[in-house]
């Protein structure tokens, strides 16, 4: 099967899942990977993670509620709420973690502007025994709150079953993502499904197609890190792909939302223990750049550059995403590999400039590869690009 045929299969499945979703009465939306969807599944909801709807029209609509100098992702959330578009348009409840300041305030704005119940807990930036216990107790409190609202008790069986299926999907998608051999649009389509479809059906679908997914060994690989990467926010991955370069997506739209499942085990059946366990899985998952201190994020990115043998790293940030963008110099120095920083939004207005910069970056990587078959940190330090 070629890439086009595979994409058609994925699209067909995606359409069918979207139709099924349309018939669901209880759809709960969440945003950050630091919220465990298993909790929502246990409360009788169909969880959907909002990692789509990142289009210029939604961003513009969001600017009717907040100023333009807000994060494009947050603006698109507000815009999609206003327009009742996409996955958000189907949600009857929002459950979220208050992470960065902009997300926290986006949740606050949703609460004020829209007639949808919003349940939030605070995601700690620091990791200590106190913050761990606090996060777990908040999660338990959240379950009680949602139960009081809906009248539907938490069903550990549903939550655990959801977790098991989702873990299987995560493991398969992780292997595909790590190789960098799968065309980005295929992987992106599958990750989109991971965010909204039934994990049971997705798992079966993956079993059906996984052997048929075309794998082309790329001439080079790039590790992509940075702000959350939504489905439609694909100019950068596309541009990388058109150069015949493979991409390892280490953002919250990619591997970051999968890795936490790999070593996680299903919780026991007691309600409190079950909820606590799902909270712990989140706490033990790869840390966010927002964590303080965030040295573990750096160590992890570095280990991925080695593990995947990538030729360079691209830090792709969303405009006004301070938490990632300010790390650019520190990251450049720490990683010691060819490094490119791209600051983007959803408007598409800088596509030409992005293309030029990515082309130039890849060209330089190619030149370096051709002249220096064995990598040395001495040479790679020269191949650093400013924004």
């Amino acid at each position, binding site marked *: 099967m070629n890439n086009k045929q595979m994409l058609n299969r994925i699209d067909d499945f995606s359409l069918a899942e979207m139709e099924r979703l349309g018939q669901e009465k209880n759809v709960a939306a969440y945003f950050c990977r630091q919220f465990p969807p298993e909790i929502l599944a246990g409360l009788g909801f169909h969880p959907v993670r909002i990692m789509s709807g990142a289009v210029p029209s939604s961003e513009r609509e969001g600017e009717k*509620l*907040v*100023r*333009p*100098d*807000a994060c494009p992702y947050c603006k698109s959330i507000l815009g999609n709420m206003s327009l009742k578009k996409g996955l958000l348009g189907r949600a009857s409840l929002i459950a979220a973690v*208050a992470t*960065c*300041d*902009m997300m*926290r*305030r*986006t949740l*606050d*704005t949703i*609460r*004020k502007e829209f007639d949808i*119940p*919003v*349940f*939030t*807990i*605070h995601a*700690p*930036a*620091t990791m*200590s025994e*106190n*913050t761990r216990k*606090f996060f777990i*107790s*908040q999660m338990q*409190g959240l379950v*009680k*709150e949602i139960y*009081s*609202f809906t009248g539907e008790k938490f069903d550990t069986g549903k939550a655990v079953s959801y977790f098991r299926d989702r873990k299987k999907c995560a493991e398969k998608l992780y292997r595909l993502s790590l190789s960098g051999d799968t065309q980005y649009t295929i992987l992106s389509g599958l990750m989109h499904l991971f965010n909204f479809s039934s994990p049971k059906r997705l798992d079966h679908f993956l079993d059906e197609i996984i052997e048929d997914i075309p794998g082309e060994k790329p001439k080079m690989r790039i590790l992509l890190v940075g702000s959350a990467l939504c489905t439609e926010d694909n100019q950068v991955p596309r541009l990388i792909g058109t150069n015949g370069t493979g991409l390892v997506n280490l953002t919250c739209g990619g591997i970051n939302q999968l890795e936490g499942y790999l070593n996680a085990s299903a919780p026991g059946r007691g309600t409190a223990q079950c909820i606590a366990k799902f909270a712990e899985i989140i706490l033990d998952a790869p840390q966010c750049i*927002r964590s*303080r*201190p*965030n040295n573990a994020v750096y160590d992890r990115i570095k280990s991925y550059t080695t593990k995947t043998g990538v030729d360079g790293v691209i830090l792709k940030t969303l*405009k*006004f*995403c*301070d*938490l990632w*963008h*300010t*790390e*650019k*110099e*520190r990251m450049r120095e720490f990683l010691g590999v060819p490094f490119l920083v791209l*600051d983007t939004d959803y408007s598409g207005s800088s596509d030409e400039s992005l293309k030029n910069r990515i082309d130039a970056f890849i060209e330089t990587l190619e030149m370096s590869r051709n002249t220096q078959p064995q990598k040395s940190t001495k040479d790679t330090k020269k191949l650093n690009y400013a924004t």
Partner: protein
Amino acid sequence: MKSNLKRISISEWDDKYSSVPENFRNECRHLRELEDRGRLYLAAPSHYASKGDRLLNRLKFDPSLAALRLWSFLFSEKDRLFEAKKHGWKIFAAMKDLGIVPVITYSLPKTLTFYADEMWWAPCFAEDPRLLDVAAKLGATEELCFVRAALGAMKTLDYFPEPDLCIAGVGSCCDDFSAVMQLIEWQGLKVHWWEMPSRNIPNTGNRTGRTPYGKTRYKKEILSFIVKELKGVAEAASDVAGEKISRTKLLWNIRRFNRIRGLLSSLREKVYSAEHTPLPGLEMFLAEFLPMHGCSDPEEAENVLECLHREVDRRLAKRLSPFSGKPARIFWATPPTDASLITILEDCGGTVCGTEYLISHSFFNIRTTGEPFKALAENHLDDPMAGACGVRVERILKEAKKFRAEGVIISGIFGASHCPFEEKRISEELRKADIPVLSFDVPFSPGRSSEQVKNRIESFVEIIKKRR
């Protein structure tokens, strides 16, 4: 209202300075704990202008000795910090909490605590982008608010000595400063991180409490969490200082800061309620930042505020004001990085009659009964940044009405993470209450005022006066 007073320029202060009574100069002492009787600190504003704070050349000052004392006290903070360090005192850099940590750390002897956040206005006062340029090289570029100057200052170490410990509050804080604090740690400085959770009102049930002074609602389970975090702060500071903080010391310090907070709170009431504003907005702007950390000398901060009170009382009794006629009463929300904007407002016929500078929790009292850390945790929950924007909106609306504001200025900073969300919300609520709003982003305009902002403030004041 006829004014016998008028604001004066820096050169007019130079002319007056020699006539400052000797007994007043002798009263203005800081570092009393460092050496017997402390050291004199009073100086003319030109002294600080010549040392680098060039914006002072463009400002207009209240002509009173109390105001001179205030300016000198604030601008001599750098001297206090370096001197204390030289004498082996420990220096703590508190970051982000804006009023809680110093209450803990000042319970330790031979220590001073300052707020790195205050570097936010340093580039404007210096009229020099140097700190911003240093920060940019380290990754904190212009999409962040001016608080990135704190990173520059931590690198250059010419505004303060190297802190022995930075105490960084994260969690429900702005992304800009969270990012800056992480880069500060990257410079090799020792940082103790503590979690400031957001208030989070539950959707159902009645599991909320209310803070005793700010009357802010919060989720009850948060309080014990914050108490543990603050105890962690105390422990980290104690380790550096080599001494434990006793309950007695902490309570004593809470009472001390309550006195400072009470003085500022009542000063605001007197000044902003008055029919004819007795003290300019520029001096009130500086005064409002005193309770946060006592400007690295809580004892003298109390004296400075008492001195201001005496001056204000005198003016109220004699119906004196630096402003003649009937200036437009303007409530100012979000502190302007560029202090000259307040001078511009006052030059255009306006006067500041109220403020919400994001630090309102730093002049609420802290409870002195019960567990002291619990009382501090409650005060943290009064922080307008610690939860939903609605709390801040309510405070602005309430005080704007209370102080009979005819208009509100919201001065934001392009790129600051809270501004895009708050500005529209605050403006909307004020317009519903039929209060005109002017909002703009404060530009970095070294050496001259932004003509655009000046025109906008001028027009705003005109509109307000026409509405009367």
